């Protein structure tokens, strides 16, 4: 999730420590920009010089240099190794980002994704030569449709938001096929930002549906908002407050009765996979973030994959390409007129066939867990979140009461009232304790939200340590012992960064110095 970084314009701090000569501090190095390193002519890749004429370049040969620095391999490796050492990671610690499902990324996934038969395969190679890759995609499709109880799945979306777009365009096509033009999408106020943004991209207008006091979508308000102009609702379930929507089937029925479709944001599927099938809840389309529920690594921001499972009503409108098996071999249908009767693909989401590199990882995860392991993982994720909720609710403030929650525990900042400590301070102090902060200020429906998703990957011992630290921090804050919150983090590679200044006068790239640098 992505609301963790409320702009901060921190004051300055003083460092009383004896500074080092180098600026480095033990194992932590200051890292120059790659552009500040390097010498002309140097390279980290040896490529033989070739004879080449300009005759075939249409007169468009590059006139000047690109401006890239030249470094040897050892320097490049050191640069990136040092950079990596400035990062937190799941491998190094608990990463309780609510809505993000920062679970363990098994190493076997990485190994399998690198099998040449999956990785060194071209998307437009003759189809008879890439049957192994097709088989992997097809196997993953089987797992996804089986686990969700949905008849079809569109594989090309490249992440959750792209999946949302795919889902809404499918709905649009289905409506058009019915000869209807509905322009409105209902989105709860607790929805993730991608939901309204996607609705807008897909050419719809967004109408917000309020939440109830207890963190659910107001089903009555939703029903009241339904009408002939409503194309679909976009509902997250479990929702972004970490709660299962108890009236979900009722809402689905109402939506269908109103001639609209039920798009489910499946970002939180990790709470229910193997225990609940969205298809049984009346869902028409749902994206699945393979990079959340199915453990493909987040990689510092991506890539992901967002396949969209579809109900029978929507399946015919799935976008190109379509993977089919003719009883003999797999075939990727890339053009509408090659598709089977009844298929009315709405178009194409992107070049080629989707995120194969993520598919092989997710499939490895699924085969490793098995259906029993996936169910157990969901249960453990929910259990761990409830354990945290139960262990912290007396010292922090849980806006929606006693629980149970699903896979994430939501707190608000009322426990910090009057302490001078904000949710942000609290989060930054966690950094000094060796933890990545949780998601904060999201969802928007509670004040100063603190959303903790431990996932199923933490041991009880790890959860207990985490709880101990958070309890102690909460108690200290309430007792007026605020030293560790002031100006935190103190022990990270950087103190708080000035986000306001960054936005006011954006410096978005390195630029060569105007004047040639004086020689050393």
């Amino acid at each position, binding site marked *: 999730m992505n609301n963790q970084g409320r702009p901060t314009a921190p004051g300055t701090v003083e460092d009383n420590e004896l500074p080092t000569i180098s600026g480095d501090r033990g194992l932590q190095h200051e890292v120059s920009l790659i552009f500040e390193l390097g010498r002309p002519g140097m390279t980290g890749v040896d490529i033989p010089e070739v004879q080449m004429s300009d005759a075939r370049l249409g007169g468009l040969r*590059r006139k000047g240099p690109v401006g890239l620095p030249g470094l040897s391999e050892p320097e490049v490796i050191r640069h990136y190794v040092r950079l990596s050492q400035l990062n937190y990671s799941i491998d190094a610690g608990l990463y309780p980002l609510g809505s993000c499902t920062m679970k363990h990324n098994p190493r076997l996934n990485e190994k399998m994704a690198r099998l040449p038969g999956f990785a060194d395969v071209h998307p437009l190679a003759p189809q008879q030569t890439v049957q192994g890759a097709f088989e992997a995609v097809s196997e993953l499709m089987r797992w996804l449709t089986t686990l969700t109880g949905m008849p079809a799945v569109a594989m090309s979306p490249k992440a959750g938001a792209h999946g949302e777009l795919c889902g809404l365009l499918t709905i649009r096509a289905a409506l058009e096929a019915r000869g209807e033009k509905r322009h409105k999408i209902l989105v709860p106020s607790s929805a993730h930002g991608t939901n309204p943004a996607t609705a807008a991209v897909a050419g719809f207008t967004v109408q917000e549906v309020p939440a109830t006091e207890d963190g659910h979508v107001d089903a009555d308000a939703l029903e009241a908002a339904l009408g002939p102009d409503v194309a679909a609702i976009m509902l997250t379930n479990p929702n972004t407050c970490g709660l299962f929507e108890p009236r979900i089937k009722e809402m689905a029925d109402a939506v269908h009765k109103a001639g609209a479709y039920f798009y489910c944001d499946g970002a939180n599927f990790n709470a229910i996979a193997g225990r609940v099938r969205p298809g049984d809840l009346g869902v028409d389309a749902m994206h699945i973030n393979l990079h959340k529920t199915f453990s493909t690594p987040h990689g510092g921001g991506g890539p992901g994959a967002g396949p969209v499972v579809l109900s029978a009503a929507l399946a015919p409108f799935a976008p190109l390409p379509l993977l089919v098996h003719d009883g003999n071999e797999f075939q990727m249908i890339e053009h509408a007129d090659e598709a089977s009767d009844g298929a009315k693909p709405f178009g194409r989401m992107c070049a080629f066939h989707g995120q*194969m590199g993520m598919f092989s990882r997710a499939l490895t995860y699924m085969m490793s867990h098995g259906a029993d392991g996936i169910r157990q993982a969901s249960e453990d994720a929910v259990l761990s979140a409830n354990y945290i909720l139960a262990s912290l609710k007396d010292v922090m403030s849980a806006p929606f009461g006693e629980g149970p929650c699903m896979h994430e525990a939501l707190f608000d900042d009322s426990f910090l009232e009057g302490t001078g400590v904000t949710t942000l301070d609290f989060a930054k102090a966690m950094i000094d304790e060796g933890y990545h902060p949780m998601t904060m200020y999201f969802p928007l429906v509670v004040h100063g939200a603190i959303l903790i998703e431990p996932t199923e990957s933490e041991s009880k011992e790890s959860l207990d340590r985490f709880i101990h630290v958070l309890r102690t921090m909460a108690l200290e804050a309430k007792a007026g012992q605020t030293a560790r919150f002031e100006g935190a983090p103190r022990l990270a590679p950087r103190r708080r960064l000035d986000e306001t200044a960054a936005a006011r006068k954006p410096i978005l790239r390195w630029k060569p110095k105007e004047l040639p640098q004086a020689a050393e």
Partner: protein
Amino acid sequence: MRYLPLTPDDRSAMLNKIGVDGIDRLFRDVPHSAVVQRSIFDLPDTQGELGVERALTKMAAKSKVAGSLPFFCGAGAYRHHVPSAVDHLIQRSEFLTSYTPYQPEIAQGTLQYLFEFQTQVALLTGMEVANASLYDGSTATCEAVQMAQRITKRGKAILSGGLHPHYAETVETVAGLSGTVTRSPVTPGKAEDIIALIDDQTACIVVQSPDVFGLIRNLKPIADAAHAKGALLIAVVTEIVSLGLIEPPGAQGADIVAAEGQSLGVGLNFGGPYVGLFATREKFLRNMPGRLCGETTDAAGKRGYVLTLSTREQHIRREKATSNICTNSGLCCLAFTIHLSLLGEEGLSRLARANHARASALADRLADIKGVELATQAFFNEFTLKLPRPAASVVDALAEKGIVAGVPASRLLPHDKDVRDLLIVAATETNTDEDCDALVHALSEAVA
């Protein structure tokens, strides 16, 4: 299950603390009728590494690996040699298993490489600013069109016939919602007269160079014509290595560059994940889609980096955002930027020249085959041949012999009779002399 750290004892103790007598109690909000048992899923149980590895290895072995045979497919995805350092570095836990860098104090590693990536993309494309990636080249093109529509407040987008058909279809599907999209007819090996199509309703012209048939396009006149009518020129690049040798779109007047970065660091991956590069002029900054990383200082006065200008993004602006993108291509950016850092100015230039030299030599030899004509005169590492027979059947025949000759144009444009005999052939530094010999020999036989 090796990935699940809780034991049965742990689970009991935790349920106890929570104060419920079973896990089912935690799922009490799930409608009763929607609770399913394990048995409903016709799927196997937990499996150890050894078993999973065996099954997947067997499956993967059913694909013919590009690196194991003479291989000449391009058309938007290129096989280059990725230095071994790249894969080693991107697998470091701190890069691989971290999230989007929203907590900059403990994410300077990711943030700094994004800043460096943005700089590299800007330099390569000759533009002023670049973002921290989009999904891939096709979706980047789509975002570019939508951005042009926003900036110009006009709806009409004109796509060159040389734009990769998958890209064109993607733009039609999505940007077609916010305006109209017109595709100019295909003119393989020739530059269409796209300038004639520009009118004062036109938001943008989208031109790919080298185009899908390999042809290097001269963008300057198009840019001038577009600007004269208040339209923007969107330049598309599917083979980013070409910019090591060819004049960048920025120098030719492009307003937005949307490119596929897969050639550097990423690999083929059967089509994804790839990395969308997106660059534009500074004045369009606040209309850009995607994340941006910017320089700032910390409270102790040290230089540092943060994600910035997020008021353009969905998590702040919701339905008014410049795009709905959230997860992007982070780790592929890293692979791209490491590969490019390794190459440097000299390496990139040599790589580009090696590609062009190889493709040129191969084109000459193939064009010498009786009945085969070279349709593309100015190209980088990819060209189009006109064969005396339908190209698809030739490709199939050669595949039988273990040679992958290229992409038949009919695979991308099945309805265009004119392209039936066209074969799109790419050659890179990874093709050996023996590969080329094998192709020349087999193609000679196939068309004889």
